[in-house]
């Protein structure tokens, strides 16, 4: 197992997540896809940390921070989706379109 295996895995997961963001219309599913992309970056960071700077733990510390931020994102995101559901009675992004142009 060398670095390229990890990078390939991460690139594949990133692409799957991006595909999900672009095709899914449910706001929750989009949020899930973004989390998937975030985790692919985490694989990247840990792999770089192990192979490029084995003596330092920079990449792994970075991952701890991104996981924390992902939690904060989820909190804000779910709160907003919750309040949208109360007013629009849907979380489908195609139907949430008061503003256009």
């Amino acid at each position, binding site marked *: 197992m060398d670095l390229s295996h990890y990078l390939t895995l991460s690139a594949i997961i990133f692409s799957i997540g991006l595909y999900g963001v672009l095709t899914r219309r449910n706001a929750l599913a989009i949020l899930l896809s973004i989390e998937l992309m975030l985790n692919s970056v985490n694989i990247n960071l840990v792999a770089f940390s192990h192979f490029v700077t084995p003596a330092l733990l920079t990449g792994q510390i970075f991952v701890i921070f991104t996981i924390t931020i992902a939690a904060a994102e989820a909190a804000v995101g779910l709160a907003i989706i919750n309040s949208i559901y109360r007013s629009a009675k849907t979380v489908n992004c195609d139907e949430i379109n008061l*503003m256009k*142009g």
Partner: protein
Amino acid sequence: MNWAFIDWTLLAPEIIVLITALLIFGLDLIWGDESERETLGWLGILGLIFAFYATLALGQGGELFNHIYVVDSLSIFSKQILLGIGVLIILASLDYIKGATKYEGEYYGLLLLAILAMMLISSAAELITIFICLEFATLTCIILSAYFKHEPKSTEAGLKYLLVGLLSAVVLLYGISLVYGLTGTTTLYQIGGSIRKYAFQPVLFISCIFLAAGFGFKIAAVPFHTWAPDTYEGAPTPITAFLATASKVAGFVILLRFFVGGLGDIEGHWIGIMVTLAVLSMSIGNLSAIPQTDIKRMLAYSSIAHAGYILIGLAVLSRESLTAVLFYLLAYAAANLGAFLVIIAFSKWTDLHNISDYAGLSKRSPLLALSMLLALMSMAGIPPLGGFIGKFYIFAGAVSEAVSDPERLWLIGLPVWGVIFSIVSVYYYFGVIKAMYLVEPVDTQPIPIPVPLGLALLIAILLTLLIGIYPGPFLALSESAIQSIF
């Protein structure tokens, strides 16, 4: 690390803003009476003014934690603009937010936290710090745009900002991880040193695209602008003004620090990206603004176009043009605040947002109409206002660089493109001016201007005039700011 050697006074402005924000959250809990909530806004203004004084005492600045956090002339310049914008936004919010929501105190607290986040962005010089500060700013801005949670438009604005914002953050993070993997370090200062050896590295080019996508979202450059029109239209108007000015200033400062300061030696990798973003933003921003009927939406597209003009300065990459970038940001922020403050006063009183609703504003409120006129003329680039001087310096910087270096003669296309679309922009700005001055009002009732908002409007408009008539000191300020990175 020896904590005794850390110069905490360099963090004084941030600490003051943070303490004020926490104080506001605390007092909001303790005070039950609604009428006392306005005091919290004034407390916020007081905190920001104190922080502004603290930035004046920073002097030459310095760096903290091994170049993770730098306080140089660029970050001091940006912090002063951000604090100034913050004061004006709170002044404008005092009347707007009263009665519009039950949660007044938290509004001011969150606004202060957003300003704090943007101040941190302008000093961050390390990949982890940059990412965390950008997310801090994005998340607070998302909450503020969705602040009126019972208004469908406001929550929709929040949702769109959220989804696009998170996506761009992840893309940015992917770019950051590639830069880290290539260099093995996360401080910009060391990245600049170790990256110099690369002639052309495809991976680096790809990571530059990812990074530009992440920062392009913050400055709302095409094609990462899709959130801007909806969020600007739906968000509470003071927050729209905040996003259009503060968020853009912070975005450009981090863009300058990252690309010019960090990756400045390998400019071949990213100049093409900046040129593409600039050309697309100018054309699509200006052309999409023409058919708009909602004034906030029109200004959203105009702010996208302005991001395009400013990006010319980055693509040219000379001392002159980078100075012009900072100068333009100052002029743009003053004029945009002026326009949005008029919209706040108008929409609070009438609850109307269409350009046609501004018919006969000159008869209903000559002061508001005059302020709007000056702000829009500055944005259209008509002398002798700030926007004209800003555009002039940006375009002149590009032309003089193209003329002096035969290999970069193609740069002359950028100012030409910019001038063409500036003329296009005059059309839609004058649509508003025509409605205000030439069309008879439907409703002749005069519009009152609340005193704090009037004060903020006066400051913004005087600044727009001053930057245009007497640009010397502002230019000297921008020049000394850019010296710390280029």
